[in-house]
């Protein structure tokens, strides 16, 4: 073959290979059922890009995947609040260049500049919500309690526990009036025993979406899930309710973050800015039925949703909600307990 043709071919191949680096693709790693596919499609059309979405069911698995090699493959992740400090410690996140994300100013003052990421250096609030109970509704007026799970006498039927260690311990620790960030061995062991007893009576451990589906399909009478799944479930089946137990529960904030070695950093920041847009933010929350941290989006949210206590808890409930913090080396305690629970 002619020398020139060969080199031409080689050059073409090389350019095709390197074009992969910063062409119009975006790799999003996000919780399942956490984004409106139409929002993604519109972004693709507007930017002539192709977005690949991979999903996960729990935050720890996401971190495991990123740590185990995903940090140069994915562009965007959606870590929960307590995980952001871990990820910054492990240098997994890239700082957000604020000039590329002007819509950051749309965030509500409560969710801008969060304690785990001062100045929104790495993250932009995505959605927030709570952990609670999803039940086939009984008495509307009765304020439900975690004893539906932990007290055999009050158990409404088959129950589903949540397959995420911090969330499961939220239920047990709050039931006994402790902080859900406790590292007190006595409190933790007490919580473990509660969960072990509940495990014997439960059908299974599931993620939030699976728990919702089990209640919807009438296989379970109660499940521990997140508020968005609860609200969506309530919309689908009027006979169910998502409630925050009276002993209190967990409030969480998920954020969008760009990964440190993201192959398409510019496009990723464009996406963050796009999500923070008022109308897009509202579309997002209208789809996921989680609460929006975007102040500018509020006017575009369905009024019914704004009044729905499952999505936007009343102020008196808000006082009983606690954020999860990363516990550093003490995370091992929870991990050990989780193994103990699963292994018995």
């Amino acid at each position: 073959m002619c020398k020139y043709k060969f080199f031409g071919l080689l050059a073409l191949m090389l350019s095709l290979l390197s074009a992969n680096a910063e062409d119009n693709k975006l790799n999003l790693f996000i919780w399942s059922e956490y984004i409106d596919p139409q929002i993604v499609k519109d972004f693709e059309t507007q930017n002539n890009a192709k977005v690949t979405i991979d999903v996960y069911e729990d935050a720890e698995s996401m971190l495991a995947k990123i740590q185990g090699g995903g940090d140069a493959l994915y562009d965007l992740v959606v870590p929960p609040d307590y995980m952001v400090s871990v990820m910054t410690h492990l240098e997994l996140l890239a700082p957000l260049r604020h000039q590329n994300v002007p819509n950051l100013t749309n965030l509500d003052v409560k969710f801008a500049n969060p304690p785990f990421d001062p100045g929104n250096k790495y993250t932009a609030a995505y959605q927030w919500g709570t952990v609670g109970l999803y039940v086939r509704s009984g008495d509307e007026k009765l304020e439900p309690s975690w004893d539906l799970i932990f007290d055999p006498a009050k158990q409404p039927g088959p129950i589903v526990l949540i397959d995420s260690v911090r969330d499961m311990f939220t239920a047990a620790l709050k039931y006994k009036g402790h902080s859900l960030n406790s590292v007190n061995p006595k409190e933790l062991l007490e919580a473990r025993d509660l969960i072990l007893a509940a495990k014997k009576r439960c059908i299974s451990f599931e993620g939030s979406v699976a728990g919702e589906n089990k209640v919807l399909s009438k296989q379970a009478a109660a499940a521990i899930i997140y508020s968005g799944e609860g609200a969506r479930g309530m919309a689908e089946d009027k006979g169910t309710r998502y409630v925050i137990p009276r002993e209190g529960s967990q409030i969480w904030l998920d954020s969008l973050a760009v990964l440190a070695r993201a192959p398409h950093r510019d496009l990723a920041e464009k996406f963050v800015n796009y999500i923070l847009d008022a109308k897009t933010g509202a579309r997002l929350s209208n789809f996921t039925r989680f609460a929006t941290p975007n102040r500018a989006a509020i006017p575009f949210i369905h009024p019914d949703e704004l009044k729905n206590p499952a999505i936007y808890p009343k102020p008196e409930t808000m006082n009983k909600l606690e954020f999860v913090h990363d516990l550093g080396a003490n995370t091992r305690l929870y991990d050990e307990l989780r193994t103990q629970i699963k292994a018995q």
Partner: protein
Amino acid sequence: MKARLPLQLLAVLLFLFLYAPIFVVVLYSFNAGRFGLAWQGFTMTWYHTLAGDSQAIAAMKNTLLLAVISTAISTILGTGLGYGLSRFQLRAGKWIDAILHVPVFIPDVVMAVALLLFYALLRKWLGIFELGLTTMILAHVTFQIPFVAIVVRARLHGLDPALEEASHDLGADAWQTFRHVTFPLMLPGVLAAAILAFTLSLDDFVVSFFTSGPGSTTLPILIYSSLKRGITPEINALSTLIVMASIIGTVALMLVQRRNEHV
């Protein structure tokens, strides 16, 4: 043989047992109801949803690509291995045999995490092997090679050496003998081994799960993560298609093996 009836009964029960799951999946892929066992009418909707599901289609593409490429590589390498082990006596033969059998007996999860770690280390030191289709192909070839080698070797064991001797006697050199005598005789075995390797790759979940990256989701991984959210009829539809493909593949394999025996 006396007492045929209990044996026949047991056999029928066992076959029912083995096929019940397949039957259920196929049946419920046509169920109009979204939840539960109640039959709510026949429908093809879920197949329509499936056709429009870009994630499922992408997964299908990945699965096939992965299977084809890994089968090609492993068939070549494994056939060489099987041929070599069968034709050459080696002092280290027993050790090679033992090492070869490791991927067969090892629990998939151990092999999967070993590869995950290996790729992580390589990435750290050499900057190569980001998780994705490539890493999955390499992983699949690793567990396919022993199976290919075993099948090819078994095939070669059954061949009459007189045919190859005759070829040499008639003046052919080693390569000619191989090309015109050994390889054609070996071919049914190689084909069977290739089909075996292909099905192993299609079927694999655990190893793929640990070594996959963005956009390299395969059908088993897709099914698993969907299952984690709850069974949907769309999954039943997808599974039915996969089951049909497996059945066709298996029957093909059996037919090839039948031809094996007639040679």
